């Protein structure tokens, strides 16, 4: 749980969100980069803003840092209105995508820069720099210049510099974007562990959904300047609230159809493409006659020997295997269930050797539990 500077968790910490955005809007000419965003981030949380390029996530982060003034709306940080406060007076620090390390200063001077602006005494400053560099596992490089460091080391220095002032919120703009894949994956876990240890709220901007899923307590999925859904990684993946989120996070099979019956928690949908009916357990109220989209994740589908193997209310779709993507750990089968409509089925490759259980042009039958589908109305 979060600790304040004095080391106590106060009652106010639990109630007051560390960040509270109300109707924050930012326009660039005719383009609305951020459109009336409401967002609260809890103390000690690792929150990700996830979205494609141009979705407004970086602009939103820059408004929290104070680099961009919002055209309207309010930004409250730690209970104080910060909407018009300049960046140098905000209790937040940022890790830049380019790291923005000062090239003419050593690692130690870079990390100490923010502390010098505060006027912290020399000895205290030196101790803090030492501690922070130890925290990011770089204690021996204090006297190096940024151009004498590897990409991963630079990333850590940028992190250390952002943490040195012990900000209320650390903002991270695509912090792992410049690292190669292996290093990125390792650093993801290191960042999460670090954040867990020091308890500072992290707000992370990323376009990489795996990164967001791996690291975040909660994710805000953004498009066109708006946050479409906010939730824990599992929530956003299993229960997306729109076709966009379903498709953006992971792979989704999206089947359109008409609701022919909606009873307590169970919806029956006749698919437009195949004319067959499927069942979805859905808490969302939908009425008969409505056109909806049913989403099923590829890994939720299972093969069965034939229609006879399926009991009453289980779902069944049949089709011909058109493409197979062998990924090593699993294979993804592209199955055509109607003219031009393909769905993806993911299956783990459990057997070390042996023949392919399913191959091209096979007709296969697929089933899934009604509870594994999601009804989407938007």
């Amino acid at each position, binding site marked *: 749980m979060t600790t304040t500077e004095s080391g106590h968790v106060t009652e106010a910490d639990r109630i007051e969100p560390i960040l509270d955005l109300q109707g924050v809007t930012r326009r660039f000419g005719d383009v609305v980069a951020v459109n009336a965003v409401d967002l609260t981030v809890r103390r000690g949380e690792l929150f990700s803003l996830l979205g494609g390029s141009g979705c407004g996530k970086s602009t939103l982060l820059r408004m929290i840092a*104070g680099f961009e003034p919002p055209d309207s709306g309010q930004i409250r940080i730690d209970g104080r209105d910060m909407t018009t406060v300049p*960046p*140098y007076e905000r209790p937040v*620090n*940022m890790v830049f995508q380019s790291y*923005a390390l000062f090239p003419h200063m050593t690692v130690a001077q870079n990390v100490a*820069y923010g502390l010098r602006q505060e006027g912290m005494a020399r000895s205290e400053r030196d101790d803090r720099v030492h501690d922070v560099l130890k925290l990011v596992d770089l204690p021996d490089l204090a006297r190096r*210049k940024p151009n004498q460091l590897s990409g991963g080391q630079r990333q850590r220095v940028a992190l250390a510099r952002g943490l040195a002032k012990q900000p209320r919120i650390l903002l991270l703009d695509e912090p792992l974007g410049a690292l190669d894949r292996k290093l990125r994956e390792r650093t993801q876990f290191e960042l999460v562990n670090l954040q867990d240890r020091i308890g500072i709220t992290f707000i992370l901007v990323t376009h990489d959904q795996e990164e967001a899923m791996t690291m975040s307590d909660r994710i805000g999925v953004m498009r066109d300047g708006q946050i479409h859904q906010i939730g824990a990684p599992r929530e956003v993946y299993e229960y997306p609230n729109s076709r966009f989120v379903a498709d953006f996070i992971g792979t989704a099979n999206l089947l359109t159809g008409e609701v022919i019956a909606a009873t307590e928690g169970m919806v029956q949908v006749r698919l437009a493409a195949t004319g067959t009916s499927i069942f979805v357990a859905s808490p969302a109220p939908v009425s008969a006659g409505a056109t909806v989209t049913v989403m099923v994740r590829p890994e939720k589908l299972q093969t069965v020997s034939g229609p006879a193997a399926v009991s009453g209310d289980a779902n069944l779709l049949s089709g011909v295997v058109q493409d197979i993507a062998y990924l090593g750990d699993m294979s993804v089968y592209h199955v055509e269930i109607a003219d031009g409509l393909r769905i993806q089925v993911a299956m783990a490759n459990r057997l070390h050797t042996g023949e392919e259980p399913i191959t091209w042009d096979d007709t296969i039958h697929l089933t899934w539990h009604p509870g594994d589908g999601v009804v989407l109305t938007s």
Partner: protein
Amino acid sequence: MAPRRRGGADIVRPFRILAGPSGRRLVTAIPFIWLAVFFLAPFAIVFGISLSQTRFGIPPYEPLIRGSEILARLDNYSFLLSDALYINALLNSLQIAATSAIICLLIGYPIALGIARAPQQWRAPLLLAVILPFWTSFLIRVYAWIGLLKNDGLINNLLEIVGLIDAPLQLLQTSFAVHLGIVYSYLPFMVLPLYAALERQDTSLLEAASDLGARPWRAFVTITLPLSMPGVIAGFLLVFIPAVGEFVIPELLGDSATAMIGKVLWTEFFNNRDWPLASALAVSILVLIVAPLAWLEHMRHRRANALS
């Protein structure tokens, strides 16, 4: 490789050498040859003359060797040291050049910073405005200042009309006019390298400084200014070095009290026709200005090498 002859091969052949390793040497040799022919050789001639004695005739100096007798002497150099005129003129030149270069820096830095931070589409026209004066002859531009500064010139007339002064101010033929002329003439040489250094700077560094609590002025002093030092040094030298030897500006705008070394040199060559003494003066100026700069450059390299 077997020699093969085809049509046209003979024409290409002289250029083929440029592609090989010896060609690379040839290409890099061109600037050295240029320097040797147009700098080193003339300098050797001037240095030779500086060791000889003056005489009436053409050329107006004695040969260095006559028969088996060596006539080369260092007399001219000892004479330079014996007469305070030369040392004073040199010190005066150094002082005027340094002051002018500093004033250029103080004026040029905000200009360069303003252009570097201007919207992208404004930068090219603004830079053009900086170098626009070069399209007029340097001499005419300095002459124009006479019209502005003289006793019944534009500035004095304006001040009298406004009623700020009763009698004309002595502006022309002052040290002020010389400084003004140098700053005016050399300002673009300060602005251009400063602009190049400032324009390159990553603006996210300033955002980082601001994010870490630095107010705009602190961010300028701790980030922008130190990172622009190569531009500051280059601009300073580009103004300072030619200003030390400046002849036209003190001649037209200054008086005898602002005798700069370039004017003394001119007088020795053309009025006194004392080529050997003038040559000794030229060599001394070069050594006195270039030697410290070469040493500075050497130290800078050593520091840079020690870092990596």
